[in-house]
């Protein structure tokens, strides 16, 4: 089954390119450390999901949307230059003028105006899939096009393709600000997506920036570096895994399987990804990994809400069994213990069958109303990913984002209380009422996650 990617805005298009590039490069890599047959099955599965073929050339199953042509042109030519895969010329939509960081402009002006054209492009791409699994929508939430138009399109995908799954890849802006109205744009986007999307996969710029600096040892970090790390993380989640352990059948319904296990509850849709190992090319040859070591670190990253392998707080421990839920909650808060709702661990590489995952099956890791049997899932494949002989990824629906979300809502509320910038939104039909709805919904989400 195939996934149609929708790349939106500057951020979405830049990341989309890196994601396809990472997926393709990995699937063609000969360092898979597995049998030829398995490698072929892996390739075929990756291809079915993300690429189609035109005259022998792999074409990304993607629709590129921006309200401004520069980025799309750039990305198209970069893909063509790769010599390996391409974007379809006919899957692009751009306009002359961007949304100017104004969510309302993207949502209420660009959205309705270009709805038909964009939905047509998507429809065409969907028709090229033998079987549609769902949509992967890449967008930032800070700007105007990705966020506003993204929210608009997701809603329309929800209406037009009610059975297809929708996952939004969301880029969370730098906490110190990259767009001044980013908090407004973010709360409007998030609250709208909460109504129309099935899952929000969130990446924070701050986090990835730190990974680039600390783990990848990059001195002068560019957006290209950041996007490559992000693409690596996504690849580690979306490259094929076995559907049944011990068979060579690869999972055909990756989005559905993931969502069913992680985001069935309407109030909990925010997913975070953690990867291990991640390091620069130079240090890789000097490192060896064991599953036990990797998983120990990954688990501690989960419970201490560490964003990367470096600087994990090893003091954080799961709460003692037998505490009443309320006591447990306050103790957790004190300890900065990160309570999970559900986790998915994806293991790739050598001896994957020997990895011991008991650490993730501890009921203390999870909320009181869901047991590990329902809350924990593991996917595996023996095929190694990227340059790593062994690697693990964690997709987690947990309290990871309570703090960032709370912060964004708080800042937006502060600004809203002074009515600053509101006139820019009312100009395009987003009234104060709309803001209040968004605040209400997100405050509830924060509260719900806190009460896990």
């Amino acid at each position, binding site marked *: 089954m195939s996934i149609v990617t929708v790349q939106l805005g*500057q951020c979405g298009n*830049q990341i989309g390119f890196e994601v396809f590039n990472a997926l393709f490069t990995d699937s063609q890599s000969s360092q898979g450390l597995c049998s030829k047959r398995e490698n072929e099955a892996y390739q075929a599965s990756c291809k079915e999901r993300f690429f189609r073929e035109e005259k022998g050339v792999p074409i990304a199953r993607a629709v590129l949307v921006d309200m*401004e*042509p*520069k*980025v799309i042109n*750039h990305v198209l030519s970069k893909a063509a230059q790769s010599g390996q895969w391409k974007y379809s010329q006919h899957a692009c939509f751009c*306009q*002359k*003028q*961007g*949304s*100017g*960081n*104004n969510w309302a402009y993207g949502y209420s002006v660009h959205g309705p105006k270009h709805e038909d054209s964009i939905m047509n492009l998507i429809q065409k791409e969907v028709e090229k899939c033998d079987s549609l699994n769902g949509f992967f929508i890449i967008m930032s939430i800070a700007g*105007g096009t990705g966020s506003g138009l993204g929210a608009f399109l997701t809603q329309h995908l929800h209406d037009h393709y009610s059975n297809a799954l929708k996952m939004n890849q969301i880029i969370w802006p*730098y*906490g*110190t*600000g*990259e*767009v*001044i*109205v980013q908090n407004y744009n973010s709360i409007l986007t998030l609250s709208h997506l909460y109504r129309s999307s099935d899952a929000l996969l969130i990446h924070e710029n701050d986090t990835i*920036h730190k990974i*680039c*600096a600390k783990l990848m040892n*990059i*001195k*002068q*970090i*560019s*957006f*290209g570096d*950041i996007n490559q790390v992000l693409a690596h993380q996504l690849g580690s989640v979306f490259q094929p895994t076995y559907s049944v352990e011990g068979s060579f059948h690869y999972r055909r319904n990756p989005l559905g399987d993931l969502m069913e296990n992680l985001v069935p509850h309407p109030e909990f849709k925010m997913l975070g990804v953690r990867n291990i190992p991640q390091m620069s090319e130079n240090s890789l040859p000097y490192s060896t990994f064991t599953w036990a070591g990797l998983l120990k670190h990954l688990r501690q990253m989960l419970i201490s809400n560490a964003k990367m392998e470096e600087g994990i707080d090893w003091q954080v421990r799961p709460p003692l069994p037998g505490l009443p839920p309320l006591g447990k909650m306050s103790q957790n808060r004190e300890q900065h213990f990160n309570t999970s709702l559900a986790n998915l661990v994806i293991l790739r590489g050598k001896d994957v069958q020997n990895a011991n995952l008991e650490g993730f099956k501890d009921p203390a890791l999870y909320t009181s109303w869901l047991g590990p049997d329902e809350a924990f899932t593991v996917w595996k494949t023996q095929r190694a990913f990227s340059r790593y002989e062994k690697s693990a990824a964690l997709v987690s629906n947990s309290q990871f984002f309570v703090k960032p979300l709370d912060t964004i*809502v*708080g*800042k937006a*509320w*502060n*600004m809203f*209380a*002074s*009515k*600053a*910038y509101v*006139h*820019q939104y009312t100009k395009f039909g987003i009234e104060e009422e709309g803001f209040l709805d968004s*605040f*209400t919904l997100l*405050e*509830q989400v*924060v*509260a719900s996650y806190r*009460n896990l």
Partner: protein
Amino acid sequence: MTQSVVVQVGQCGNQIGCCFWDLALREHAAVNQKGIYDEAIGSFFRNVDTRVVGDGSSISKGKICSLKARAVLIDMEEGVVNEILQGPLRDVFDSKQLITDISGSGNNWAVGHKVFGSLYREQILEKLRKSAEHCDCLQCFFILHSMGGGTGSGLGTFLLKVLEDEFPEVYRFVTSVYPSSEDDVITSPYNSLLAVKELNEHADCVLPIDNQSLFDIISKIDLVVNSGKLGPIVKPNSLVTSGGTAFKKQHKKPFDAMNNIVANLLLHLTSSARFEGSLNMDLNEISMNLVPFPQLHYLVSSLTPLYTLADVNIPPRRLDLMFSDAFSKDHQLIQADPKHSLYLACALMVRGNVQISDLRRNIERLKPSLQFVSWNQEGWKTSLCSVPPVGHSHSLLALANNTCVKPTFIELRERFMRLYKKKAHLHHYLQVEGMEESCFTEAVSSLSALIEEYDQLDATKSLPVEDVQRLSIAV
């Protein structure tokens, strides 16, 4: 990609414009080596096949034939415009883009605004429409004018209202040159104040420029250049008014160097919209990010490093210094000290070989020394354009919506009041048809209201930053 139209009004506006077109041509020539007409060039120039009679049909693709500036030149005297038309830039303009008169406005806002305004309204409108027709997506009008004189100030602000009515969707960015206190025009306080009211009401963004600041900057450059520490080696292709500019009297006339700074400001401001970069910033993002309340649309700008403005080969200073400079008092294009005032919002537009990490590092570094309004503690807007200014590796334009503009307004009001109390020269104005006393009082109260708004914001400066009470979720 979008296009912009530059409307240059009055002597000052046209002189700045002249500099601007010269630099713009040279910048695009440096970036676009192949001579192909592309969208970046298209944002300021039309490509015209001159062999076709009439107004020359635009060519949207292919080789560059003949570039025409997307500009409307207005002056009520002929001098400057004629000079331009006889200068090296003559091919960039044609007579259909000009409106001139011979009488001049006599340094009288009322003449420019009321008399010439009604006289030339239709004509101006027609030229504007024409220029708009040549754009497939007109995004912005840049109005270049000075506040002190008659034409630029009067007709320039008249124009704003016309644009607002006629092109409500198109942004109006105004570069206003404020007179310095030792201005030789005696009525300049009147003119400026009357103009301020119009700017308050009809502009989307105003970039105030102070002649005194420009002059100080130029002097500083000269000082560095002549100090002997660094060889005054002229860079052949740098974007400064050296050899091949419209006026070949650079060092004699400080105005040229000063105009050059303003022209550079415009180029930098639009660079991220014209060229590729890893973090684009379109023009419409400027007002969206920097204007929290409709009236508070005055943006204080600073360009660093200053050597990009000079025609000298100075080894680059540390990158981080560039960021520090942008916040220092002596780099601002008006006399103001943003660092000790309150920031409502701030944009950092970077060109050249600078990455996001450099930007983040400097924001983190500078943040503690700056004071932002309570509801906008992270009020940063950033952009990264990969094309540096010609001949340099990087540069930075900082735009600040900061209460530091307030003293400029207060001073203006004081100078105005000094004259107005004496009713000096008032009759020159009142004899113009449609001009009444109330025009002055209204203008004063408009300016006072603006000052009051800044005052209120400044008042919050001393208060501790506290979160507002949020919605409380029951369960």
